């Protein structure tokens, strides 16, 4: 009886610890992706106002997600994405409401030394309206890869 109680207790403890561990690691990865997105935005802070609001989630290799944005003609925007999986290859690209690629430049980086991967896309919209940032996990060693996207803006002088 005692053995049974002990094993039940151990099982429950392990289950509880397991839940706590997976919960905290889940949050850690989402938070990490967001921190890395802000880190990827660091070179832009001097010129651009980087929004506190962010998008994020997790995707499998090859998966894409569309993010709806309202952009204004007369502003200049950088969208910056990051993942906490350093060997993941990720991308963000910008399309207008007709599905036409409209970014003026984009980049992708794998920062293995800094333990994250990042990507960016730049646009100076020619018209005010709805745009879509398409984020993609191109390749990743993980089954699900957490990602976060932030953006910064400035007015075109």
């Amino acid at each position, binding site marked *: 009886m005692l053995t049974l109680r002990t094993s039940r207790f151990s099982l429950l403890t392990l289950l509880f610890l397991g839940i706590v561990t997976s919960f905290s690691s889940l949050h850690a990865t989402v938070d990490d992706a967001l921190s890395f997105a802000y880190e990827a935005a660091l070179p832009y802070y001097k010129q651009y*106002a980087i*929004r*506190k*609001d962010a*998008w994020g*989630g997790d995707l499998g290799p090859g*998966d*894409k*997600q*569309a*993010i*709806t*944005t*309202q952009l*204004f*003609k*007369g*502003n200049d925007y950088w969208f910056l994405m990051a993942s906490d999986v350093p060997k993941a*290859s990720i*991308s963000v*690209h910008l*399309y207008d*409401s*007709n*599905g*036409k*690629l409209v*970014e003026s430049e*984009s980049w*992708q980086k794998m920062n293995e030394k800094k333990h994250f991967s990042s990507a960016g896309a730049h646009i100076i919209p020619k*018209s*005010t*309206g*709805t745009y*879509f940032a*398409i984020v993609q996990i*191109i390749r990743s060693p993980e089954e699900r890869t957490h990602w976060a996207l932030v953006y910064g*803006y*400035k*007015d075109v002088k």
Partner: protein
Amino acid sequence: MASFCKTLYKRGKSNTSSLVLACLLVGLFFFSFGSAKADQPPASINLSDFPAASVQDVVVPVPSEIFAVLDKLGNPNWKAQLRLGKTRNPSDRGQVALLLGSVIAEGFIAVEAEDTERVKDLGRDVLTLADAINVRKSVIARSKSIIEKADQRDWRGVRAEFDGALQDVRSAMDEMNDENLAQLVSLGGWLRGTDTLTAIVNDNYTVSGAELLHQPELVHYFERCIHTMPTRMRKNLLVVRINDVLHQIAPIIDEKGKNITREKVQKIHTLTSDIVAKINSNS
């Protein structure tokens, strides 16, 4: 690739290791080329291929994103756009949230008008209204900073603080699971911003000025927000009226390829101006 390896093999030392090395190098070249090519985005995509679940909602632009553009619309009479009445503190939490958003947008107009005293008043109003919906702590520093920076006439700094106040209030509400109130704050700000934008565009109409109103997804987003609110909030008289205003605005600004005419700008102005007056009223 095999023939290319063979050529290298003939030119180089005829041993197996050279051939293997050459093939590896060529393979590496093709591999790198392949992965770089994989990162090339398609020139066009079919947005309808994205299932609804894989499309994330629009993030509401902060006022300074819009006001930065408004700065370029000539030299509007910003003082004429200011609402000068004393800000009330309604008992209804939904109305307080809407009013808070409206007051923050008002702060931007006062900055444009370079009206130091009005900016300081609005900085204090932000704190009072935030207190009424239990998010005072999140904006104490912002309110103080707005007043200090207004005294220094640091208008860029004041704008950043109002933007920050809006984001801090919304974050605090989200943390308290008050997402619906957070959405009302954004909605109140958007309505007051649109009220002003339409007044300015109407005063000096240009097609490019009117184009700033082309925000269809944002209007649909607010409609969806109201639709998913709890029944009690959705049936709040003010929220019902706002929903009606959004339904009337949506088709005006959602006509693809068509300019937003002066008459349409005027119609949006009448609708938003009336509803902003109601948000600011005691009823």
